[in-house]
């Protein structure tokens, strides 16, 4: 890969960003480095490696171990090279007898208080202390182990993924600095002084009980075996590694999968990854055990009805059965009676193939993706205003922001690695504004500068953003020059008239949003006058009946203040799943071909028709909720669902279950028997990201390679299954590697024109648009013009319409939903890992005021009812929300959080309104009817699976 530095090497101290170069001489070698570079790093860049212990290049230098001492001509003593900046004309000596002796003495002191069990130590072969002892030529230790020492210091094994063995600690404080500088959690400190100093988590607690979020940064920073992955302790050191991309969230962190044969020993965040620069969170770093979990589906299965046990069959038989059923159903009920759902967890290539199969093989446009239920309003809203359905920045751009406005997002839990980067910028002094019904952790960032919380009522986003824009316009805070040169004039003056109306003023909206007018005014001023102001938003924006309007309102605000088109600003949707951006780009929506080209556009359609060799329907197909309605009406009869769990993730579960039961044939391709598979007739084993090749596209439009590190457990990568199904249906597909699929994508999608696996190998990653104008991709969008009409952005009219989901006498509380760090989405993966240690059930957070009224205490069972259904969860009394608002997560299927969410949805895209449901809450003694049925069905379907395995074993 083309890198300006070798991401596998540790240069000791971070790079300096200065453009001014200084030239110095190290051991007679002349080298020029950016001003501010340490002598240690300058030497490393010249391939001169100075011994080090307390320095590592993702942390600021600290200068505690002194083993990196050097001599500099004209200076006294032996300064530490990690803390000494390189200066023009310096002459540095890194090796001579005096330095060697000094280093040996230091090393001797360290080793005299260190167990000498190197041969049986888990870090053997990967220990910097060992390496340095070798490098300085340590041959004897004169002090013996008889004096006071730390050799029997206790181990902390509370964290399920790593062990803290204090006896091996050299108190270099790399872990402490990693936790504060990189992760921003400040969970670790050095406790005590001198000989007594030691590393302590929290207030001298276990790691698990402390604020530690198990990101692994300290483990990675530790030069010894003190902090060590349990998997390495169990399996030993890896022997090879492969760079790949995390399959959890939309940050898209790069990892080195460190392997022993085809077994993953550990996942180490990759320093060369442009999205994460070597940082990670607990999910990507540690929660990969689901890939080899016993629940994995290992063989294809079929059955005629969902009340029957499964039958294990060969791939050929399963694919043949599926194809025959699809053809029969189409013959009887028409071409439009079937459809499919692509996955935001699968690769771009796999998603592309599924929609191709539907459009070309099924002959209709009944394709949709789970992005429907999360970010479809982003696609719509940004396309209408800015011309492209994607966020405008890189993650790194936040480091140039002076003001960060976070709306309906919870980055420290849902996008943790980006959350850490944002926290770093906030510690440096950027101001923070959070608009969220709930008090999110970002507001508790240690060393936060200036911050504000606008705790608005759920469902009033548009009222809030309109009020912010009203202040900008009426207080003269607009960027007139930007508007004149970059925005379409007519749309702007219409919008200006609309937004200036008194009905949008903060004072007017106070009663609606519940946020004090003065606070809104202050927030608007801060955002508009900060210099570089950036907006980050999440599902708290999109998952509303006005999701699309809100996205447009956000774009309006950024345009009006000129905060688009350069570093540090922009409109940034934080995507939930790893490949939400990619699944939208790849033409998963029923009205759009890959690259957001409308099916009714004859030119675009013509190009696809020429390559695909079929006629493509020019009418949009069905969206997921319309598929469900049509299924219940008997018009829609079969579905191919790849890697999605619509029965758990879609709202109004009982309605969804009714629809799934109505299908004549449901084909589910997944790694587990998920909730949807319980209604399936064909179950095709899926493959995890570790078992296939492909690409994911993260929230900053970055296309990252996914590389296969182990063979697929059931023999096929997901794209191969789609290819076979297509061939069996009589629409030929012929690919031997996903790179060929990407070549086809590039040939048909203008924004991907120059993307290829070869180029990805060269560049590491590419941000689309990547075409002739932007040959190596586009980190920042809309720098010169907008890809819309005449190149000018469009202000949109954003009328506030209150949701019909309002609190009433019967349902007096508003339920809103969210996520937590350790679990991911519907939890199918993370529930099958030790991440359960942090969150093993969904709970309902209730404000003390509402709790007292109902006599609710922590841990009580609560019945929650809405007009859609009823479920039971345990209570947690919490002041994170306003009175009148309750909150839960939906990581566990038996919680039935979606039994209560309604089928209200966004007006433009039908993205469900997960974030607002009117409910009543009361103490109960038993699970709900739905939960009892769920339990029974779960038991029955599991037994069907077991019977299939038993029958297959007998047959062998």
């Amino acid at each position, binding site marked *: 890969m083309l890198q300006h530095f070798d991401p596998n090497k540790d240069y000791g101290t971070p790079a300096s960003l200065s453009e001014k170069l200084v030239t110095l001489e190290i051991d007679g070698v002349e080298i020029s480095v950016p001003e501010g570079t340490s002598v240690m790093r300058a030497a490393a860049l010249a391939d001169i490696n100075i011994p080090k212990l307390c320095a590592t290049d993702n942390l600021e230098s600290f200068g505690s171990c002194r083993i990196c001492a050097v001599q500099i001509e004209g200076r006294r003593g032996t300064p530490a090279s990690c803390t000494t900046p390189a200066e023009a004309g310096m002459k540095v000596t890194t090796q001579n007898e005096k330095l060697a002796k000094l280093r040996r003495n230091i090393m001797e002191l360290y080793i005299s208080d260190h167990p000498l069990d190197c041969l049986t130590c888990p870090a053997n072969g990967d220990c910097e202390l060992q390496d340095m002892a070798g490098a300085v030529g340590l041959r004897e230790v004169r002090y013996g182990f008889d004096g006071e020492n730390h050799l029997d210091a206790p181990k902390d094994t509370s964290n399920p993924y790593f062990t803290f063995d204090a006896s091996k600690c050299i108190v270099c404080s790399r872990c402490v600095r990693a936790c504060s500088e990189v992760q921003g959690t400040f969970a670790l400190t050095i406790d005590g002084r001198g000989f007594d100093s030691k590393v302590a988590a929290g207030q001298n607690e276990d790691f698990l009980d402390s604020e530690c979020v198990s990101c692994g940064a300290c483990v990675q920073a530790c030069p010894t075996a003190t902090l060590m992955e349990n998997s390495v302790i169990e399996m030993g050191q890896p022997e090879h590694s492969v760079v790949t991309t995390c399959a959890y969230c939309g940050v898209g962190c790069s990892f080195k999968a460190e392997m022993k044969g085809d077994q993953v020993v550990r996942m180490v965040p990759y320093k060369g990854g442009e999205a994460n620069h070597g940082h990670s969170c607990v999910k990507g770093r540690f929660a990969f055990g689901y890939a080899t979990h016993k629940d994995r589906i290992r063989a294809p299965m079929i059955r005629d009805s969902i009340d029957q046990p499964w039958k294990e069959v060969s791939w050929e038989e399963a694919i043949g059965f599926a194809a025959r059923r699809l053809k029969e159903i189409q013959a009887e009920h028409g071409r*439009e009676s079937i459809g499919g759902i692509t996955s935001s967890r699968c690769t771009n290539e796999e998603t592309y193939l599924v929609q191709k199969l539907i459009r070309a093989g099924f002959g209709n*446009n*009944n394709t949709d993706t789970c992005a429907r239920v999360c970010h479809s309003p982003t696609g719509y809203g940004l396309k209408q205003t800015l011309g492209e359905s994607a966020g405008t920045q890189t993650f790194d751009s936040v480091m140039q922001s002076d003001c960060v406005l976070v709306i309906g997002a919870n980055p420290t839990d849902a996008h943790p690695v980006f959350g850490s980067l944002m926290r770093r910028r906030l510690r440096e002094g950027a101001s923070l504004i959070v608009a969220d019904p709930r008090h999110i952790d970002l507001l508790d960032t240690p060393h936060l500068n200036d911050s504000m919380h606008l705790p608005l009522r759920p469902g009033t986003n548009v009222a809030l953003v309109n009020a912010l824009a009203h202040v900008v316009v009426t207080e003269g805070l607009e960027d007139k020059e930007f508007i004149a040169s970059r925005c379409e004039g007519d749309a702007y003056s219409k919008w200006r008239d*609309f937004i200036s109306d008194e009905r949008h003023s903060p004072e007017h909206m106070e009663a609606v949003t519940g946020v004090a007018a003065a606070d809104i005014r202050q927030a608007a001023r801060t955002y508009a006058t900060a210099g570089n102001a950036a907006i980050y938003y999440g599902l708290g924006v999109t998952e509303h*009946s*006005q999701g699309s*309007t809100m996205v447009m309102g956000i774009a309006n605000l950024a345009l009006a203040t000129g905060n688009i088109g350069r570093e540090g600003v922009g409109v940034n949707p934080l995507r939930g799943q790893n490949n939400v951006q990619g699944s939208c780009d790849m033409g998963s929506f*029923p*009205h759009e071909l890959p690259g957001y080209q*409308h099916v*009714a556009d004859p030119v675009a359609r013509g190009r696809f028709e020429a390559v695909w060799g079929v006629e493509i*329907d020019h*009418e*949009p*197909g*069905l*969206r997921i*909720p*319309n598929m469900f*309605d*049509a299924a*219940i*009406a*008997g*018009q829609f009869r079969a579905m191919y669902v790849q890697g999605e769990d619509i029965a758990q993730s879609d709202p109004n579960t009982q309605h969804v279950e009714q629809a799934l039961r109505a299908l004549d044939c449901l084909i589910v391709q997944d790694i587990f028997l998920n909730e949807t598979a319980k209604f399936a007739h064909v179950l095709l084993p899926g493959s995890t990201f570790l078992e296939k090749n492909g690409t994911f596209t993260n929230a900053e439009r970055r296309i990252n390679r996914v590389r296969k590190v182990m063979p697929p457990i059931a023999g096929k990568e997901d794209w191969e299954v789609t290819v076979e199904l297509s061939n069996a249906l009589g629409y030929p597909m012929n690919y031997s590697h996903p790179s060929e699929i990407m070549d086809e994508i590039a040939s048909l999608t203008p924004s991907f024109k120059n993307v290829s696996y070869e180029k990805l190998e060269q560049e590491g990653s590419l941000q689309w648009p990547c075409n002739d104008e932007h040959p190596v991709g586009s980190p920042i969008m809309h720098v010169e013009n907008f890809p819309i009409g005449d190149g000018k952005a469009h202000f949109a*009219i954003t*009328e506030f*319409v209150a949701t019909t989901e309002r609190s009433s006498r019967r349902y007096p509380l508003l339920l809103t939903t969210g996520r937590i760090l350790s679990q991911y989405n519907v939890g199918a993966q993370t529930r099958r890992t030790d991440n359960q240690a942090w969150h093993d059930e969904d709970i309902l957070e209730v404000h003390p005021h509402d709790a007292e009224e109902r006599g609710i205490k922590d841990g009580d069972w609560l019945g929650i009812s809405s007009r859609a259904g009823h479920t039971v969860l345990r209570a947690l009394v919490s002041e994170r929300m306003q009175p009148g608002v309750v909150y839960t997560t939906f990581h566990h299927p038996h919680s039935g959080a979606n039994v209560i969410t309604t*089928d209200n949805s966004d*007006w*433009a*895209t*039908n993205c469900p309104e997960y974030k607002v449901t009117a409910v009543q809450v009361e103490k109960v003694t038993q699970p709900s009817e739905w939960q009892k049925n769920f339990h029974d069905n779960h038991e029955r379907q599991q037994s069907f699976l077991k019977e299939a395995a038993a029958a297959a074993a007998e047959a062998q």
Partner: protein
Amino acid sequence: MSQSEMDRLVQMINQIAINNISAGDENAVAEMIAGHVQKFWSRRMKQMLGEYTEQGGEELHPAAKLAAEKLLSQAA
């Protein structure tokens, strides 16, 4: 066609109408709604809306009804 399916379509188009009510006069709003339906609804959904409108389209918001009529005349 099932009742609940039709109910949903009426609800959808009315929601589009209410959310775009400030787009201009009734005609402009109807244009906007018609464009949206044309762009995003499936063939069968449009047909159902057409039939419902021909039968009087009682539950339709006035602007939505105008939009549905525009779509019908375009299709004819």
